[in-house]
């Protein structure tokens, strides 16, 4: 088991290294001088030269890469060009709305998807199953920003239950801030529930035909106990996997949703960084999100290793 864990750890380290390499390369594919592109058409030659110096763009590419990689190992993701603060600090300042948005969206997605997925599998082929499958597919076809705008039109513009955008302004209480997250979280949660529903259904179908479920039934155990205590418990591992991966992917959905609802989170920071060509911030955000994804994957693999002694990597 220790050997498997070690193998997986090495694999993760390699993938992380490649992730950093990709993030480094992305900025280098910019046609022309990245410093000139970042500063825009009005920049003077001196400005460009000084930014090149600051970003270390004059060094040979391998040296630049080593410097960048070394910085990341020390937790230094570079300096935001526009905000003039460290990238890690810029991301941290915007972390709250994104964190709560992701947590609420995930909770809503799980609350919808788990019961629907379990019942779909239990009543396989029924009208309920077909309707749920169609609905899940429909939800996966809706652009999240469009659903957000529709909700905004109904619940904020027409009914006036929520503000159309923002995070309550400076000095807003925690409750006020969370109130601003309701519509974005529902939007993101409903769309994410599609994937979790499909996985839950598939995982439940796998276990519902297993011998121990039949044994449990033949013992005269109530259906509720069979489904929840025996089947669902065993289907939980693949379901938790997809929930974990959805959590990492929700950051991507947050980019769009935060922009729709004008939330000052990491997502809208990324969009404004793109519009301002603030490459260090884009790179930092890419690294954090991809790193989280790789880490979640790794933790899930380790959980498998702990739970199921047959698993080997």
């Amino acid at each position, binding site marked *: 088991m220790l050997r498997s864990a070690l193998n997986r750890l090495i694999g993760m380290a390699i993938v992380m290294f*490649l992730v950093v390499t*990709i993030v480094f390369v992305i900025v280098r594919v910019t046609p022309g001088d990245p410093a000139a592109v970042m500063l825009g058409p009005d920049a003077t030659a001196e400005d460009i030269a000084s930014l090149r110096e600051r970003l270390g763009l004059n060094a040979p590419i391998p040296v630049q890469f080593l410097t960048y990689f070394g910085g990341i190992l020390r937790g230094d993701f570079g300096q935001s060009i526009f905000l003039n603060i460290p990238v890690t600090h810029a991301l941290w300042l915007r972390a709250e709305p994104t964190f709560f948005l992701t947590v609420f969206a995930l909770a809503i997605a799980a609350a919808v998807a788990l019961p629907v997925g379990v019942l779909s599998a239990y009543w396989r082929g029924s009208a309920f199953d077909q309707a749920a499958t169609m609905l899940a597919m429909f939800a996966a076809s809706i*652009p999240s920003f469009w659903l957000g705008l529709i909700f905004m039109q109904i619940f904020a*513009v027409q009914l006036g239950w929520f503000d159309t955008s923002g995070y309550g302004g400076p000095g807003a209480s925690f409750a006020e801030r969370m109130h601003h997250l309701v519509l974005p979280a529902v939007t993101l949660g409903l769309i994410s529930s599609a994937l979790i529903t499909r996985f839950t259904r598939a995982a439940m179908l796998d276990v519902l035909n297993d011998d121990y479920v039949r044994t449990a039934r033949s013992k005269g155990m109530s259906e509720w106990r069979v489904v929840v205590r025996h089947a669902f418990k065993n289907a939980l591992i693949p379901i938790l996997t997809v929930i974990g991966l959805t959590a990492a992917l929700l950051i991507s959905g947050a980019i769009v949703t935060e922009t729709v609802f004008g939330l000052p989170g990491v997502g809208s920071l990324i969009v404004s960084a793109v519009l301002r060509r603030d490459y260090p911030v884009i790179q930092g955000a*890419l690294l954090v999100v991809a790193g989280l994804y790789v880490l979640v994957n790794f933790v899930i693999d380790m959980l498998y290793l702990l739970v199921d002694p047959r698993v080997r990597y």
Partner: protein
Amino acid sequence: MAAVTTAPARAEPNLLIRIASRPTALAGLIVVTVIILLSVLAPLIAPYAPSQLAVRDRLQGPGMAHLMGTDELGRDVFTRVLYSGRTSLTVGFAVVVFASAIGVTLGLVAGFFRRFDAPVSRLIDAMMAFPDILLAIALVAALGPSAANVVIALGIVYAPRLARVVRASTLVIRELPYVEAARALGVPTPVILVRHVLRNVVSPLLVQATFIFANAILAEAGLSFLGVGISPDIPTWGTMISVGRQFLDQAPWIMWFPGGAIILTVLSLQLLGDGLRDFLDPRLAKDV
């Protein structure tokens, strides 16, 4: 010789009949076909010219004169949804072609040549760690916003998924007796790759391509909405919604209909893809 070179029979000739036997897949195919036809024939069908201004008729609700209403400049929304479809569908299709070109090459190389398998597979793993929209945004930011760069960015984003599917199939096909026989007969490796391996990878590839087409349409709309994709002057379903949101309280129909077009297209492609998967790739039928 013939027995060696002929790949196992596939059910391609009667694929249409098989699709027809499944109502949801058939519905998907019909709706996708109708949407493509409506876009291609837009100049014949559209009641107005796409940029024909009628300032006096601005922000009118859906009605007889304007089926889907008019926008802030009095342009006919129905006409613009038809014309936008041309851009959105072309971008989606171009993404599929570009992603397939990269994905198939990577997948074949990784699956067929053992010594390339580990490095290519790790690269694929690393690429898949980035959420699609985020990686696409970063690539467009680096390359500069334009329709061509959106296609390149999304192509790079989706290529690893195709590479993974192609690699998995190639690994199996590589070990089949007819490939071994072709090798023993001295058939050059590139010929084996194209004639024997690639041909048998087509089915899972087609299934994935359908889903990527759907995802690419969603992603392009997302990028355009964020203002980091195709220029707002070029009508796509995404840019229409992006512009329409400014008139959310006065004229919500400006964004209703392009959104509806996206949903209908993506949903139909997904239904079609699901059907294709069940016919072409029974191994994956249970997969999600």
